[in-house]
């Protein structure tokens, strides 16, 4: 458990705060929707309500992360966001296809949803069209992924943020600021076992001390790629959810925990870890948890 010398930024989007010294704010949890198949709004609504109930109970903010796989899914997913999401709830859009990214930004602008949007994500594959779209339709917040295909160590991750390695014309932080994004979250790019998977966790304190920006990752991706777990019946979901405790333990601020259906385990386990961190950091570093921290809500 850590405390940082560098001043830590606390960023806010639509009432949710992310960042700060470890132990101050609860870990923010991003739950993924629409990973597979056709978007199913009724099922998604059920999962969403469950996640928000868990959020209320533990104090850990829950943010839906909408995976938009193809062009045909843009309209139904944006409609879902507009109609079915609580009006003040921020959300993130997770898109891999560059042309879909551009269309989603335009659509979010048209629906006046950009002030609640966390753009997931900016990385070294950013295209000129995407840059132009981000300038024109700037989301409130963006996740910058520090994936460096050449150097997967914490140093390599800093390198892409700082100067783009040789993959982009400048560093990803400058690129993000230059398109007008004022609130940046850093994702430390969790990779498969065998590809320095631990570096995504080790990089959290490194990046927070370097930039003071809210930092986290999708550590559950490492579990997803750990095929050997299939030899142990029924443990995958538990291991997947448990992997997230590494993030607050190493001073991180948010976890992109994968399928929202895992929220029932992820929220209590991360709340438990947040309490552990808070007790230590208050005692040794004088960091008081906020009123809605799990330690305040759950420890009677």
């Amino acid at each position, binding site marked *: 458990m850590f405390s940082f010398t560098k001043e830590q930024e606390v960023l806010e989007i639509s009432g949710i705060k992310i960042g700060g010294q470890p132990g101050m704010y609860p870990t923010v949890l991003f739950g993924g929707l629409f990973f597979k198949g056709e978007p199913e709004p009724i099922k998604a609504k059920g999962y969403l309500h469950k996640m928000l109930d868990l959020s209320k109970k533990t104090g850990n903010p829950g943010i839906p992360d909408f995976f938009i796989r193809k062009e045909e899914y843009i309209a139904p997913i944006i409609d879902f966001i507009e109609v079915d999401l609580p009006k003040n709830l921020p959300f993130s859009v997770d898109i*891999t296809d560059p042309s879909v990214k551009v269309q989603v930004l335009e659509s979010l602008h048209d629906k006046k949803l950009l002030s609640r949007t966390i753009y997931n994500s900016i990385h070294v594959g950013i295209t000129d069209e995407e840059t132009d779209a981000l300038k024109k339709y700037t989301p409130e917040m963006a996740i910058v992924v520090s994936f460096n*295909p050449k150097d997967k160590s*914490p*140093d*390599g991750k800093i390198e892409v943020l700082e100067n783009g390695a040789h993959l982009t014309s400048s560093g990803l932080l400058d690129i993000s600021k230059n398109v007008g994004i004022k609130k940046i979250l850093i994702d430390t790019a969790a990779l498969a076992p065998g590809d320095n998977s631990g570096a995504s966790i080790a990089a959290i*304190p*490194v990046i927070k001390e370097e930039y003071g920006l809210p930092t986290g990752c999708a550590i559950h991706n490492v579990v997803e790629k750990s095929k050997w777990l299939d030899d142990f019946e029924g443990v995958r979901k538990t291991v997947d959810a448990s992997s997230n405790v590494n993030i607050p333990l190493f001073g991180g601020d948010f976890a992109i925990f994968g399928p929202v259906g895992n929220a029932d385990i992820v929220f209590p386990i991360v709340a438990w870890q947040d309490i552990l961190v808070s007790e*230590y950091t208050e005692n*040794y570093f004088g960091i008081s948890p906020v009123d809605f921290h799990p330690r305040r809500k759950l420890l009677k």
Partner: protein
Amino acid sequence: MENKYYPWGGEFTRCTSNSCVAVVLLNIEYMPSDKVAIYGPLKTENIGIEKIVANVISNPNIRYLVVCGEEIRGHRSGMSLIALNKNGIDDQHRIIDAPGAIPYIENINSEAIERFRSQVKTINLIDEKDKNKIDIAIDKCIKEKPGSFGKPYIAIRIVPEATTNLEDQRALHSKIVVDYMGKIEKRGE
């Protein structure tokens, strides 16, 4: 003995080592027959492709790489793999004319890439999900009996140089110190 082939590991199934065909599965639920040398899924257009290159050139019997299934959206990993085989990489290590988002080959040297390009021919069955058609393409390759390419080529994984030199502007990780209570600060500041 099998482990001498495919030294980079990954998510794959070994079948007949002396077969001339390896099968790359994009988005497809399909299990090739055990007449192929190896098959497995491809997800990413960088690390995933590197593993395929390393594991293919270590088995000189593999002469055909059948790439099948629905293309990976955004990553365009299938077409990026085919582009690598066709065009190689530029001096920034980017796969020439690859459509993927981050098609960089950084952990494998150019000699290994050239070996890959010489050793195997890619069979483009991207967006083909008809299993019979894929089976027919695989059988056709096997019937060609192209023979071994020669000796196995074991690709060395390029590992970035570790440094603790405070003058190095790039290596920041090594400048972080944590005291016994967990307070973090940058060394030298």
